[in-house]
């Protein structure tokens, strides 16, 4: 990787790490370790953002780094942990599709999003353009995760890690969105998380479980 500046290499490394973690989450059965993986992903995201900020001298990206650290690494995992303790739902997560097949689909998705991203990356001005494909892959994988999980909390974690992918795309592929937008996004994520928390309790008190199979009553196919 000659000609590529050092910070870019780190970013690419982080990108790879992000993807790896996404796979790991896809494969992970235990909900607690799922949360840890999510936190790790957030950390990788934060580091990459910081590196971008340092490498491209864009001070406002430090802000979003801080934001990421605060939200994705500390607050949200903490909330999730508390939720799990409060609702004591320590079951293992059984997927709808078994893990190997999920993995295979995941790989296919990665390939797909890569060669979807290639033509775009060619014309990107940033040195870190190749990460766009990875970001897209992360989004796809989290989407897949949301589909395959049949419990509420893992689904939400999938949702959050999708946000991670988006953040990554925003920061690394395009050196960060305007600050106001990022703030807005962050706010939305936070509020969303809180609301979800409320939901968990409501659902719990209604069905005394967080299994989504209770939530399949409204339908057209009688």
């Amino acid at each position, binding site marked *: 990787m000659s000609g590529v500046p050092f910070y870019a290499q780190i970013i690419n490394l982080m990108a790879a790490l992000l993807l790896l973690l996404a796979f790991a989450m896809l494969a992970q059965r235990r909900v607690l370790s799922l949360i840890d993986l999510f936190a790790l992903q957030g950390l990788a995201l934060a580091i990459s953002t910081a590196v971008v900020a340092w490498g491209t001298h*864009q001070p406002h990206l430090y802000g979003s780094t801080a934001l990421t650290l605060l939200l994705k690494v500390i607050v949200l995992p903490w909330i999730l942990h508390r939720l799990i303790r409060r609702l004591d739902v320590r079951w293992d997560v059984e997927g709808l599709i078994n893990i190997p097949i999920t993995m295979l689909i995941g790989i296919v998705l990665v390939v797909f999003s890569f060669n*979807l991203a290639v*033509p*775009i990356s060619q*014309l*990107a*001005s940033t040195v870190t353009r190749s990460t*766009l494909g990875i970001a*897209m892959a992360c*989004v796809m994988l989290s*989407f897949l995760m*949301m589909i395959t999980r049949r419990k*509420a909390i893992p*689904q939400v974690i999938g*949702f959050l890690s*999708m*946000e991670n992918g*988006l953040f990554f*795309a*925003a920061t690394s*592929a*395009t*050196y*960060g*969105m*305007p600050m*106001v*937008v990022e703030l*807005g*996004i962050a*706010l*939305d994520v936070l*509020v*969303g998380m809180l*609301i*979800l928390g*409320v*939901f968990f309790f*409501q*659902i719990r008190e*209604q*069905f005394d479980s967080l299994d989504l199979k*209770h*939530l*399949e*009553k*409204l339908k*057209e196919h009688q």
Partner: protein
Amino acid sequence: MIELVGVLAIPVIGAVVLAVLGARSHAPAVNVVASGLTFVAAMALTVRVIAEGPILVLDRQFFVDPFNVFLVALTAFVGFTTAIFSRPYMRIEEERGKLTRPKLRLYHSMYQLFLFTMLLALLTNNMGILWVAMEAATLTTVLLVSLYRTPASLEAAWKYFILCGVGIAQALFGTILLYFAAERVLGAGGGALLWTELNAVKAQLEPTVLSLAFVFLLVGYGTKTGLVPLHNWLPDAHAEGPTPVSAVLSGLLLNVALYAVVRSKVLVEGAVHTSFARELMMGFGLLSVVIAAFLLSRQKDLKRLFAYSSIEHMGIVTFAFGMGGPIANFAGLLHMTVHSLTKSAIFYAVGHATQKTETQLIEGIRGLVTRSPMMGWGLMLGTLAILGLPPFGVFASEFLILITAMREQPWATPFLLTALGVAFAAVVSRVQPMVFGETTAKRLPHRPAMIPVYAHLAIVLMLGLWIPPYLADWYRQAARLIG
């Protein structure tokens, strides 16, 4: 400027005030007043824009042109009438013990916040803020959907949250791609997400990126618009939430989401020189119309029925915008207007009807007209209007859309007409026995609010027979803008 600030500030203040004094008995009145003030401000803004043309303020962050100003006026108006309607409605719900004071507090402040997000989404010039506002709209309404805490309402809210969240995430990715393409032309920083800027340079934007972006944006905002097959949250959310929420959801939210789609379509059209954006929209539109029409004929729940009819009509509008051209766009805008007016009117009537009979099931509701003629006729006329029977305005727009389709997309006409026929049979066969026949209705503790219903229907009727000139060239300008 001042009007614009008013439009955006009043709902926020209202939300705060209501959050503070929420539990008081005059909270509904406050809600009405706040919405009314918003409406007044919106009208002032409208007048201003009619007088002076498009305005661009607060360092280009806010932008008002014919396209969004009439949506602003519409949103403010429907928000106002819905507030009027929700006053007696919610009081009855409270007396029936279905809602508690804290929940009402939540409801009222969230209602104002929701209005704020809608108006923000319409007025902002920044695609990023647009996204934020759309997401915020979801967040403000999701708790309202689950207000009754019944299993069904929780399920609906959950689906609403997850599906729309995921969808909106796609929209964010699309926005990022947009930015990604734009910053190469406009350079990094705030300017690259401003719609006006993008619109100015749309010809130079990178086609491949933009087409990718459009896919994500369409899937994202399309989910909120309720395009088939992304629509699955919509009937549940409409059916299980309180009726005022259903009214604003299908009267306002869908419009605004569609507005977002159209805004991005304009950019893509400019950059990409193929017609794929149009084709996508026509495809989605047609699919929604047909599928919704057939699902209509399986409904047992009154509010679900009209939720599906909303899907159908959103499909029609999407199809119209997909066809493009002055007439079709004109018709699309007109249809957005009349649909949100008619549909909210129907939901008002439906809300009181469900209260009168204490059920939401269609078999349970019979002979409204014998016990309370105004309500019964309101429901009947609204239904016929929404089914596109003249002399109501829906017919006018559908007529224009159909004749354009006959000329430009002849292949699509049979599908459209079949769908319209099926929908007609399905809805009339359900609504007729509810309105006529032996009654099952009971007395209500409070006088139902029928003025909003008839006010809306009157406007729709007028639009069917006579479109005021300024409104017409308003639509025309917007249509030209959409291209």
